[in-house]
């Protein structure tokens, strides 16, 4: 018989931050229709206001973990921290976008609505405890991103980016669904906790069902691996990042990853931890994730070396960074390390969020001032715009992982858990590729300070906008603060325990 949920069992309050954003996005879509074109700044305020509201609401419910929608949505500290990072990303990127859209002439209210949808999708992904909700959330995240990538239409690059992203994304989604179907076929449930409860037995039973379970896990991994741009599912990334409008690139290089890793961690840690060949061993998926992480770091960093365009370079760098986070995910497969690894990944993502948004803010400023984002356009920036250049230096250092920046803290935590998990080879790859990455990050610094511009770009520069300035400043603050006072965030992340939410 039907179990009628009451308002209490639905417990929508726990999901308030995400729901408020999704609902407001719908409403804003309508409101925006009646906002005249020359006053689109109103839409920005409305969107940003909603994000701030969600941010505060999230802080308020941070300690009250609970299930919503009959266990499909889990509001716990993990999703709490993820939500903070995701909302932060959205806020920064909205601020970053406004001037850009105006300048490029694509100022349309839908942009902000789509950003809100993506944000809601990412938040749902991080909190979804059910394969079906994960899929729906993934689509809520992806489809607006396809549109955003092509938002600069009829710019042919932007259209191409959107089309490519859409085609490949649909391809990858199909894998995710297929994987989900297989897991469902094997376990008879889509709820991650229930999957966790039966997964161990299925593997131990040595029947063909275990084959389906593992196939399902593999395909889920593929679907989400695509979202986080893990090698070898990364090929779309450079093209899409380069073609999409720059603020969109900044936004999606962070938001899509956050959503993807949120779901990945939940599926693997909550649902599949028990998938081991013998009890006490690391989970079966650890090897795959470790190999993916290794590949991602190697390919991402090495290809980034040869990029002359900073946007493209950052795209590859974002692939490489996904590799470092994947390293933590792999470590989470070892018994007893799940929480430590998850916390490491969270800190890394936060640091990456600040750094990346900041770097993109600088790129947008340079693009605007010098008409492009090639390495050449950064030449002499140290003289022309010292503040901007110094900010860029900090971001580059953070990406490299130099102490006193957020990037260092993130990397340190991630490497530590990887070593604890016994994946020494992976940690070595990580360190080596970090060294490699230093080359191309430092190259930017070198170009800014140690080379003189042949021609003065001064007069062509119509001072950069306040929005970008603010974003860069906030990002700088975040990056440095995280590097100097990591306890500010670890206070929050230390409460995260993903495994504990298993209640078989």
């Amino acid at each position, binding site marked *: 018989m039907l179990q009628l949920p009451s308002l209490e069992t639905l417990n929508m309050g726990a999901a308030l931050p995400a729901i408020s954003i999704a609902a407001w996005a719908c409403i804003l879509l309508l409101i925006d229709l009646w906002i005249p074109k020359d006053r689109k700044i109103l839409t920005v305020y409305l969107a940003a206001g909603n994000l701030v509201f969600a941010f505060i609401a999230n802080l308020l419910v941070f300690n009250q973990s609970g299930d919503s929608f009959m266990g499909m949505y889990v509001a716990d500290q993990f999703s709490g921290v993820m939500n903070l990072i995701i909302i932060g990303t959205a806020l920064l990127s909205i601020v970053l976008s406004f001037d850009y859209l105006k300048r490029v002439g694509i100022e349309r209210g839908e942009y902000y609505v789509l950003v809100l949808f993506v944000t809601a999708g990412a938040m749902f992904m991080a909190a979804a405890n059910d394969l079906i909700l994960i899929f729906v959330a993934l689509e809520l995240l992806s489809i607006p991103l396809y549109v955003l990538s092509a938002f600069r239409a*009829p710019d042919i690059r932007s259209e191409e980016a959107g089309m490519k992203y859409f085609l490949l994304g649909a391809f990858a989604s199909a894998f995710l669904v297929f994987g989900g179907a297989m897991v469902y076929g094997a376990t008879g449930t889509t709820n991650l906790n229930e999957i966790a409860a039966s997964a161990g037995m299925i593997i131990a039973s040595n029947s063909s069902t275990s084959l389906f379970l593992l196939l399902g*896990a593999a395909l889920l991994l593929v679907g989400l691996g695509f979202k986080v741009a893990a090698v070898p*599912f990364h090929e779309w990334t450079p093209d899409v990042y380069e073609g999409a409008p720059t603020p969109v690139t900044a936004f999606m290089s962070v938001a899509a990853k956050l959503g993807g890793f949120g779901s990945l961690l939940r599926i693997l840690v909550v649902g599949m931890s028990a998938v081991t060949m013998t009890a006490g061993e690391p989970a079966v998926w650890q090897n795959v994730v470790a190999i993916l992480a290794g590949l991602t770091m190697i390919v991402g960093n090495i290809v980034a070396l040869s990029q002359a365009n900073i946007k493209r370079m950052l795209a590859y760098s974002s692939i490489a960074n996904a590799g470092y986070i994947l390293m933590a995910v792999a470590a989470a497969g070892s018994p007893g390390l799940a929480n430590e690894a998850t916390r490491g990944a969270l800190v890394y993502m936060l640091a990456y969020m600040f750094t990346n948004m900041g770097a993109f803010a600088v790129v947008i400023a340079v693009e605007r001032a010098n008409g492009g984002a090639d390495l050449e356009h950064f030449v002499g920036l140290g003289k022309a715009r010292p503040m901007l250049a110094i900010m860029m230096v900090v971001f580059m250092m953070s990406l490299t992982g130099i102490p006193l920046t957020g990037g260092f803290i993130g990397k340190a935590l991630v490497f530590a858990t990887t070593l604890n998990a016994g994946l020494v080879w992976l940690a070595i790859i990580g360190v080596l590729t970090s060294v490699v990455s230093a080359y191309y990050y430092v190259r930017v610094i070198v170009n800014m300070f140690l080379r003189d511009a042949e021609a003065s770009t001064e007069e062509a520069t119509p001072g950069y906008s306040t929005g970008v300035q603010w974003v860069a400043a906030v990002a700088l603050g975040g990056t440095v603060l995280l590097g100097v006072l990591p306890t500010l965030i670890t206070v929050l992340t230390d409460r995260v325990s993903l495994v504990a939410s298993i209640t078989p």
Partner: protein
Amino acid sequence: MAYYPQLVSLIILIPAIGAFINIFWGARLGEKWVGTVATVASALAFVIAVLLFVYLEGSGYEAVVINPPIFDGWIQIPAGEVVIPWQQRVDTLSSTMMLIITGIGTLIHVYSISYMHGDARFHRYFAYLNMFLAFMLVLVTANNFLMMFVGWEGVGLCSFLLIGFWFDKAHGVGWRNTMAANKAMLLNRIGDFGVVMSVLIMFWTFGTTDYFRPAEIVNVHLAEEAAHAAEAAHSEEGAVAAEGEAANKPGDVVLAQEGEGEGAAAEEAHGEEHSTPGVVYVNNDHIETDQLGVFGQAERFLDEGRVIDIGPVQLPFSTWLTIMTLFLVLGVTGKSAQIPLFTWLPDAMAGPTPASALIHAATMVTAGVYIMVRSNVLFYYAPVTSFVVAMIGALTALVAGFIAMGQWDIKRVLAYSTVSQLGFMVAAVGIGAYAAAIFHLVTHAFFKALLFLGSGSVIHAMEHGHHHAHSHGHGHDDEHHGDDHHDAHEEEFDPQDMRNMGGLRRKMPLTFITYLFGTLALAGIFPFAGFWSKDEILADSWVAGFDNNNLAGYIVFIILLMAAAFTAFYMWRQIVLVFFGKPRTEAAEHAPESSRLITIPLVILGFFSLGIGFMNTPSYVLGLDNIFGAHLFTDRLEYSVSKAHASEFNLLIALGATALAVAAMFLANNIYRRSAIIEARRDPLEMLPTTAPFWSLANARMYWDAFYSRVFARPFTRIAYFLSDVVDWRFLHDYFHDVVIWKGFNAAAQGLSKPVDLGVIDGAVNGVGRVFGWLSSQLRQIQTGYVRTYALSLLVGVVLVILVILLPLLQRG
């Protein structure tokens, strides 16, 4: 022991690999290799079929169910408790079918190498042929209806592809080929609906689609007999041991394993669940009803008198069984070209002749007969269905035989003949003569393949002769004024029209002799194969009618006798028109004998058309049973077809039928041999006032196709017209769209959007124009990665991830 029949999984795999190679690399391999690959694949499959046959001989015909390695589960939904395994069944029935399919298939492969020489899509033809073999073998080796249906659909697809193989021929011929392929596809879809319904009903009723579960004993009667025999032998030896005591357990007759090979094989078949060492069950009483296959459960249900609940209606199981089987019969009428769905088969001759021989004469079209014999238990207990089947079969045999008498196209005659002979088989099933149906299926496969290949040889020769005659310009110089004329002439000439032939006996002696063999076999002349099988069907229907007082028996007997006379008549007419007399065209004059690749299969098939009938000689006939054994084939078949039985030889019927056939042949000889009317491209029967109406009726194919197009196709078009004109256009469009929607919507939208939107749109349009101008200059620079490459690399990644994640599982084994 159990590993030997495992070979059966290869019998599907090898042709599939052959098809795979030819599809992907065929174009690069060249004709020689393509032909070799395909033929070798087919020949290997034949070798396996022979090995399996030998295995069955050695193991006492006990059926084996094989789970192919690696592929151990097919459809398994643990959550829904649906388990449909991919199991293959090696028993006497499937082994018979495998031998025919691969044996004749191999010969036809060899033949095709020569026949298809020079065709632009040579490799694709062979790929289709191999693919057909693979699917056909899936069909016959399946152990459940769903897997059978996979093969059923697969061969349908191959048939479609091969009928329309020459879809690009010039002068509208290609279009006709395409339409023929479509027709086959559409009519078969109707039939497939029946099969799907039938299988769904089965699954709903029994919870399984397996024929038999691995542990089941198919023919309880035989098993008991064997057990008794063994027991008797056992007690004679005086070896009363512990096993003997175990035998006293109520309900089971148990015997020691040392009894004989039979016992060992039976135990083998039991599998893990029921095998107490040394204990052999001779019936299925120890198995729970829901652990039985479809047929076992059906018998149980009948014994119980179970009532089936279908929503608010309650049906006794026997009624339900009738519905189930009637749906299956609908499928059979599609695939095996019976009334009312038979019209596709004559058109299917548009395909290459060897493909017609294999698919549309010897194997695929007999799938319907095969599946009915396979489900003989169901049909045995569904008398209404059986009656319907008998009527369909007999009527089809008669109607198709009648139509065949009025055709000029050499292949079309054979096509209708095939329909008619399939009618014989179906009628045999209808009267319960399952063994006779399969026997006729086997002999027919040989001689009809032979006839088709022979006709292919003739057509080939006619084409060559035509080409030869015209390239050398013999006596036709005055007619040729240029290439255009030549082309026009090319178009008119029909190498398949028997009016263009004649006198080929001397031109192609080998083809003639083998064709004659095929004709005599088809006409049922002693001692050719057709005599034995047709006689068995007639004898069985006699027994069913006059001894068992079955109405269907009387009707079938009389109709089939007439159909047999028709058969002899139209076949001899064909022989006379094609081979006797004088050549009626230049082409026939210059027709050469075909190459050895073509004639060798003909000779082999001719040999079998002569000899294959002796494998099932009835007892007490001319002492032949002393040489060949009596009812060997039927006895063997009984191990998998539990309701099969051997019939008594009836000398009177044999003599009568043969006399009738000979008389019909003499009649045909008299009419066509001396007739000069054929020179005028008319049929002698057409000229006689008494026979003219009948002849034109046959020539017009009894207006069957015309009837379909008038009753179904045209009204359908008219209804579509009505819907589109009155309902859609006049009502929906003129009124509803224009007035209600368009005007109302317009008013609403105007009111809402006017104040805001007007300025925006104008601005956007102008902006777009400017941006485009700028873009076109940028456009050329973009030439980076292709999505398809990305998708491919993604796919490679998927495979990698799957491999790595499954590695521990594989290591565990």
